[in-house]
Every structure is written in C-alpha cells, then in structure tokens.
C-alpha cells in the first residue's frame, strides 16, 4: 500500500514536470497504480527507470483535512462487539488515528483511507444496506471512509459528518484526493 502511494505521488510529480507525455490518467488503487495513455500508439514511458530511485515514504506529507463526526452510527454497537471494545473506546481509537487517502473509487469523492488501527478492522456487513445516507463514516477491512452521497453500501457505520465530500461545482470537487491526510474529530 505504501509503495503504491509513493509511486502514485512520484508519478503525479513527474507528470506535472512534463515527463509523462501522452499519459491521460494516473489512478492509484490498493497495491497498484494505473498509467493510462491517450492512444495505443503513444510510446510507453520507461516507468521502471523513472521509479527506480523511489523509496516508500518519499511522498511529501500534506496537511490533514479535519472531518467532524457525530459518532452515533447504526453499527457502532456491532463494531464494539466484533472488536471486544466498548463503543466509547471504538470512537476514541477511530478518532485518534491519522489516516491517508490511499485511493478513490466506488463513487466520485469516495476515498479509501488507510491507517485504521488493526483492532478496528472488521468485516463488512453480511449484506449491504440499500441506502446509506450521505456523510456516513464507515469501516470495512483495512479501510475507513465517508460516503459522499446516498448510495447502497456494506460498510459498518460508526457515525456521520456534515462535511461535503463531493461537489462537482467546487474546485477541487473532492474533499479527499489520493494522498490527502485525514483526521476525524468527534463533534
């Protein structure tokens, strides 16, 4: 995960420096980064050479976005039961950790945040909800995240925020982009 994040940060820097001509998308994911060219005839950059010097941790830390959360989610008790912690301790540990957006997906502005303490890593719900409200803060596996808009979803919901995660008319439209640091603040 750290390697993919570092590689993405470096590729973004190289593209900004004009060293990735023809590249139309750079998309990080959990362990891999997509480098997409505009046409099949564009020459493939020598990525191995460009990334040879890369060391995980080389990415520049960015100031963390603070997200106020009301920790009253419908799955708080379930997560407490799964982890063996009481609900207050689940909240304290979730809000104490420093997170980083590893990648986006699922919906515009939905960031998969890494940094979730191991003891809070629980499976997703056995069957997904058909409608999760916008701003719901959830956990699933190694990730935590915030639903940008009402949508179906299977993550365990700890709370809710009024922060606007996605606004297509805002610049930038996404509050959380790959590499962004995140802290959750009990509200």
């Amino acid at each position: 995960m750290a390697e993919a994040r570092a590689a993405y940060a470096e590729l973004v820097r190289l593209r900004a420096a004009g060293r990735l001509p023809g590249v139309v998308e750079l998309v990080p994911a959990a362990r891999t980064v997509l480098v997409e060219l505009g046409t099949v005839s564009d020459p493939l950059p020598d990525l191995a050479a460009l990334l040879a010097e890369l060391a995980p941790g080389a990415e520049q830390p960015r100031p963390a976005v603070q997200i106020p959360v009301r920790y009253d989610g419908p799955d708080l008790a379930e997560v407490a039961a799964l982890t063996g912690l009481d609900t207050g301790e689940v909240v304290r540990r979730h809000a104490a950790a420093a997170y980083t957006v590893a990648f986006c997906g699922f919906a515009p502005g939905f960031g998969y945040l890494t940094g979730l303490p191991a003891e809070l890593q629980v499976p997703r719900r056995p069957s997904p909800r058909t409608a999760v409200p916008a701003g719901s803060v959830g956990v699933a596996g190694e990730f935590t995240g915030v639903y940008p808009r009402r949508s179906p979803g299977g993550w365990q919901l700890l709370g809710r925020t009024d922060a606007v995660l996605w606004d297509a008319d805002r610049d930038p439209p996404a509050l959380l982009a790959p590499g962004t640091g995140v802290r959750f603040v009990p509200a």
Partner: protein
Amino acid sequence: MSLTVLWAGPLTTVQDLGRPGWAHLGVPRSGAADAPSLRLANRLVGNPDTAAGCETTLLGCTLRLADARWVAVTGAPAPVSVGGAAAAAGTPLRVPAGGTLTVGAATGGLRSYVAVGGGIDVPRTLGSRATDRLSGLGPAPLADGDVLQLGPPPGPPAPVDLAPVPALPAEPVLRLAPGPRADWLAGRGHELLRTAAFTVSPDSDRIGLRLQDPVLPRCRDDELPSEPIVLGALQLPADGRPVLFLADHPTTGGYPVVGVVHPADVPLAAQARPGSRLRFRPVRPS
C-alpha cells in the same frame, strides 16, 4: 434554439466524449458508448468532436426542433424520418423549424446517435455534458417532454453524400490483450477465451456487458485488493461470468482483470445486443 423530446424511448441520454482525467477521484470516464459513431455524427453536421448529442437504446427516439437545423443519425442502423418522410442515416439532414426527427428501432446493434448542428447545450459537469449511469453525474436520462437548449449553429455541414461505415458484424470478434491478472484464469479459461462464443446478458448496460455461457474458471479464489479499471477491461468475478467494461465503468474494482479489449474494438462491444454473441481473439499487447 431548442429541441423537445417527444418520445425518449427506453433510454436516451445526452453524451459527448466524457470526463477523462478524473478517474483518480473516482469519476468514471462516461461519454458515448460508441464514441466513433458520435464523432462521425458531429462531423456530418459540422460540429466539433466535443459537441454533445443523443445516444438512443434499441428503440430510438423522436425529437422536435424549434428552429431549422442540420442533423445526422449514426451508430446502430435504424429507420430515420424527418417530418414523417423516410430519410437516410449517415448523412446530413435538414430539419425545418418545428420539424420532427424520428429514429426508429435499430435493425442491428443497440445504440444510435443523433447529432444536431450546434450541439446540445446542457450545463457541463467536470467539463462534460455526458450522462453517467454509474455515478449519476451529468443530466438525467431524457424524458418525454424535456426541452434541451442548443448551441449556436456551426457553418455548413460536411460535403458528403453518405459516410461510408462498415456494417456491424452479427457476431463481433474483439481483440483481447492479456490483463494484469491474466494468471488468475485457469488453463481451461484461456482456451475458452480463444474458442468460445459468449452470450451477452440482458443485465448489460452502459457500465458493462455481462457475459454468460460459458463460465470462465478461475485458478484462484482469494480476494484481490482493489485495482484500477480501464475501458474495455474484462473483469472476472468469483462466479466466472466475465464483465466487459464500457463507458460508465467504475474506476477501481475488486475482481481480477484477465484481459483488455483493444480500444478500437470497444465500440463493437457497445453495440452488442442482449442475447447476441461475441468472441475474443487473444493478441499480444501492442
């Protein structure tokens, strides 16, 4: 300076060339499923490639134009009429003020495209007017009675009688390069990809073609951490029924991508009807 949707058909959407460049924020590319057909329609009426047109699904649509405009219909072949009189697809047509354009049921393929001189001028979202059925970005699918603003008419239409377009094959053969997780496919699966004809499921949509019959066996059952998805990616869920991703595909996904269809062949996939069959021809990456 407007267009009224008299009949929207089962699904007619506004499409242009989509929103490339935002995938890192989880924004699908979207845009015309059969992009070359929309480009051709735009060129025929003198529009820039980036103009927005209408994408129909199977049964077509009926539109009324407030003022006189050039229009062109491309993509899936379908009967076309202007003011009730039969007209040709693949050529610029003059629709008089208050006149109607009808695109009928496709006789082959799935999606027809209507370009109107000046383009459809709905507001852009992230630079594009495309309706994205996965994320909900862009305008809602068209409904009967919708009124859409049009841009200022461009210069004269293309000086052509009829654009030459190859007929859509009944059973397309799509070039398929190995995907990043081709090794998740069992040997028998590789053989089926080379030899079998796959049936397009009725669950298919602008997000992707769901293929059924035959099932492709995987040689690994473990979970794959999410990976980026590209247009034309052939993803293999645990049930072995592959999904071939089209314009509104998600930007990341948790199933292995075992192959990627050549970009030039994706429009053929976008024209494949539910119930029809298609084949793959494995190629080395270019």
